[in-house]
């Protein structure tokens, strides 16, 4: 096409402005449940924290019928998931396909030993991070009770988690990551759209997050790339590439999906630290300081 340079420059500027104003973003706004982002390895380690029925240290097998939690505490999810169609979607570890994570052998040995000191917790460092009401870092595990709200103001995608009132602001304006001396539980996220997929690049983690019950820590060299793909009017497919060169020999990927909740479901406050007695229950009261 024979466009003059001036017109071409204006066209590029116009496109950039429209994108920054949010008008060019595909719309995924709304409230969703999250499913399937469970990074369960093929040969998971022995874990005294594991609440499942196979762990002699859990209460699931007791003859008096007392389980880890009464079933109803997952039933908030029945309200959140009412009317959602059953879906067969990509979930769990998808790369490597055999779900044997590419641990560096010495780091795998260290974390297996770390787990054995979590119950009883040898010290503060060995207490599960989500028992401390710490920010969650990455999406992890199943969560039947707490929805996610996606908002799209101009130039950003914002995700609000009910869980521990967490929020992530993903800027789309092409800014660089913050400097290396700023470390964050949630990392620093920047994003861009490719068609119907939002790609989010996150760095600057602080090395104080867990990935799962079996992976109790990830390092501060962690770098993630997430893909949120609008699959249909009610579903977002999700995949995260987890690249932690301190712990693993190469990156690996976990998948899951988000599904819209029924109309009328609202966000509820989940204040965590305010009502938590966990550290005192585990260790006793800390000595008075004066």
């Amino acid at each position: 096409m024979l466009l003059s340079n001036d017109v071409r420059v204006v066209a590029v500027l116009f496109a950039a402005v429209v994108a920054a104003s949010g008008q060019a973003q595909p719309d995924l706004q709304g409230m969703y449940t999250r499913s399937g982002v469970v990074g369960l390895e093929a040969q998971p380690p022995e874990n005294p924290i594991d609440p499942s029925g196979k762990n002699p240290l859990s209460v699931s097998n007791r003859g008096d019928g007392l389980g880890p939690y009464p079933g109803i505490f997952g039933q908030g999810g029945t309200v959140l998931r009412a009317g959602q169609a059953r879906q067969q979607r990509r979930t769990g570890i998808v790369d490597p396909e055999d779900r044997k994570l590419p641990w560096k052998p010495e780091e795998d040995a260290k974390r297996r030993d770390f787990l054995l000191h979590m119950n009883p917790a040898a010290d503060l460092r060995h207490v599960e991070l989500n028992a401390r009401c710490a920010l969650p870092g990455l999406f992890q595990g199943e969560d039947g009770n707490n929805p996610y709200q996606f908002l799209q103001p101009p130039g950003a995608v914002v995700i609000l988690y009910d869980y521990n009132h967490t929020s992530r602001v993903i800027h789309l304006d092409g800014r660089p990551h913050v400097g290396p001396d700023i470390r964050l539980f949630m990392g620093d996220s920047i994003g861009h759209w490719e068609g119907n997929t939002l790609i989010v690049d996150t760095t600057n983690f602080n090395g104080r997050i867990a990935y799962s019950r079996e992976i109790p820590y990830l390092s501060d060299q962690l770098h993630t790339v997430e893909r949120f793909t609008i699959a249909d009017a009610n579903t977002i497919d999700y995949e995260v590439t987890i690249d932690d060169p301190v712990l693993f020999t190469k990156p690996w990927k976990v998948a899951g999906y988000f599904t819209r909740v029924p109309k009328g479901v609202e966000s509820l406050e989940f204040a965590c630290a305010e009502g938590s007695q966990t550290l005192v229950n585990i260790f006793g009261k800390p000595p008075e300081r004066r």
Partner: protein
Amino acid sequence: MRKVLALAAAGLLLVVVRLAAHHAFAAEFDVNQPVKVHGTVTKVEFVNPHAWIYVDVKGDDGKIVNWHFELGPPNALFRLGWKKDAVPEGTVVDITGFRAKSGEAVANGRSITLPDGRELFSGGSAPKQ
């Protein structure tokens, strides 16, 4: 504790738990100290991350101890229809649970039943309001 860990060594097959986002019970509460009390509700607190129910329990010595039972997340209860004032003070209940490792009159509540056998804070029995 170490002896129990040795038992756990044989072939664990982990199962995904629906509530993986919530922290583990096992580090905080003692599976070897189950408790079962009969008493009167003094307070129900719908606070996150745990709802709490406070129960006056008369011990064998006749003294009344106010037990604190930790329940699950109140947001789940609210979404199921349990409003914040659902259980009046003075309600008589039977509660089972596991005592906190700290040894206080604090426990993780498992089942709460009324004298007529109805279960409190159970999915099927939120009162219509």
